[in-house]
């Protein structure tokens, strides 16, 4: 029984990892930049939720998600419009925007240390965090279940928007050829702003949900970034459900590994990632480049 519970909990945490990866994959796939600051933005969203909770102590943590999504979306949109698009437009070298976000990650992380303190924090989830269900003798938390539902909904929505809607077509066209879409009246810069906004909104959702699950510090971003990357790369570019499956695989590996070996940290997910990648250099579900 304990093994089934471990695997189920692995799926819960893995689904969140999938959402982290989805945010990063959007930017990586569409804007073609490696956003090193993604982890810091996840932590920033967690702090944002903590601040909102302080001002509205009676609000349900799930309700806090709404302002968090709006604020992180606007933040991402503005960041891309004001700063990152400058270097995406001016250089064909993809390392320049990557190094820009590298500088940002350094600045944001230490700004958080300086202004918000380095103590571990946790987002109180109240009644919701303690609620549990008994299904077939397994005890399952309500919060992880809601988290999984949110994650699945986000993946389904992303898949739908990209494959079925007008804006999805514009985004795919921009990925294919950012010069030609200009001829059709699309400004790639605006598409990038939207994508960065969506990416950070996804990071925000996952950040808030993760902060309810475990404590975080300004330094947690590094670990979150690493996990997000592992999800993207292992899942393979251009495959949303690949990212979902990769996230779940990493989550299960992490929790099962910790059962065997309690102080292993992220060792087993890292090993899974490295082995998976060496066997399939383009990820599990990625197209051959």
């Amino acid at each position, binding site marked *: 029984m304990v093994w089934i519970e471990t695997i189920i909990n692995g799926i819960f945490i893995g689904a969140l990892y999938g959402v982290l990866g989805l945010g990063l994959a959007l930017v990586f796939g569409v804007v073609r930049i*490696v956003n090193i600051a993604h982890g810091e933005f996840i932590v920033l969203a967690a702090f944002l939720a903590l601040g909102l909770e302080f001002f509205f102590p009676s609000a349900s943590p799930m309700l806090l998600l709404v302002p968090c999504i709006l604020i992180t979306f606007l933040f991402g949109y503005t960041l891309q419009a004001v700063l990152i698009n400058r270097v995406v437009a001016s250089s064909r070298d993809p*390392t320049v925007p990557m190094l820009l976000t590298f*500088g*940002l990650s350094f600045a944001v992380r230490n*700004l958080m240390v300086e202004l918000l303190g380095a103590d571990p924090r946790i987002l109180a989830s109240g009644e919701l965090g303690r609620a549990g269900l008994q299904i077939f003798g397994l005890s399952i938390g309500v919060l992880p279940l809601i988290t999984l539902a949110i994650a699945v909904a986000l993946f389904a929505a992303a898949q739908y928007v990209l494959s079925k809607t007008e804006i999805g077509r514009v985004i795919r066209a921009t990925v294919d050829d950012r010069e030609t879409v200009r001829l059709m009246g699309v400004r790639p810069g605006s598409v990038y702003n939207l994508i960065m906004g969506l990416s950070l909104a996804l990071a925000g959702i996952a950040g808030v949900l993760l902060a309810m699950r475990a404590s975080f510090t300004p330094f947690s971003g590094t670990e979150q970034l690493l996990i997000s990357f592992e999800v993207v790369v292992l899942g393979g570019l251009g495959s949303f459900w690949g990212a979902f499956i990769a996230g779940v695989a990493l989550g299960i590996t992490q929790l099962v590994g910790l059962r065997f*070996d309690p102080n292993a940290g992220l060792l087993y997910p890292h090993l899974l990632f490295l082995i998976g990648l060496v066997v399939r250099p383009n990820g599990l579900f990625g197209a051959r480049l």
Partner: protein
Amino acid sequence: VSIGSRIPVTGLLVIVIAFLPFLLSKGDIHLGFEVFVILALAQMWNLLAGYGGLMSLGLQAFIGLGAYCVFFLSNTLELSPYLVLPAAPLFCAAVAAASAAALFRLREAYFVIASWVFSEIIAIVISKTSWLGGSSGLSLLTTGLIDLRWFQTVVYWLSGFSALAAIAGSYVLLKSPIGLGLMGVRDNDRAATSIGINAWSCRFLVFVVSAAGAGFVGAINYLASLYVTTVGAFDIGWTGAMIFIVVVGGIGTLEGPILGTLIYTMLRELFTLVLPVSGSWYLVTMGAIAAATMVIAPQGLWPFISEKLGIELLPIRREPPSGMPESGGELGITYRNTRA
């Protein structure tokens, strides 16, 4: 400019570095040590990323491995740490060579992440290995075998030697035909391959050399404090500092990391000694400067200064043979191997 003409300047630098400890205070010697360590490491990352095109976030793996290698051998064999120091670069080179086959299957962003994960795995494994001190780290047990009166001076000399060797070694390598091939691969690996350059061996060479260099410097750095932990030695912050220095100074130039190290050190001294603010503000400023550099002058400061003032200290560009066009035309290879 031939390599030979650089020898007198190098000799002069060796003498200056060798005699400085006799003129400086203990604090200044320590500062000099730190500057040389980070300069040598930055040159290694520059070689890897700026010339080999391998953007690695995992060079700290070899800092840690080098340090652990020396501590383990010295403690186990009861030999002076100076004697086992050469084992660090050799061991790191061997690990790099063995892992290259797997890591090189991955390109660009995939390589970036995999190199970082590779380092994390080694760090976790060591922190779980009891005979390597586990999570509490390793102390050097053979301090009885070294003359502690000279210790600070000796590690300072070793750091100075590493920094000079990193610059001189990179210069000689890049001036050689191998260096030309390397830059060709960095700028356009298909074009380079089409004229007979083996892209894989070029990358392999810089990967192994930079790993050996980082291993040696890592060993010296932790030897100086007589103590090493996985948290410190495998910290991504090491590579963060290298990237800051190289990117701000000028990636793909040999002068850039020197300038970057000066800026990095002055900034740190300014914040910790002059301004009454805590250490994190210095890191905030560092990050902001790196980001601003990418927006304003993506090539970094040195190419900017070099062009404005028309000076070059360690030029590695080739003059095109007389009568040849400046660019290789259809092949897309430029004879002037600067990052234009």
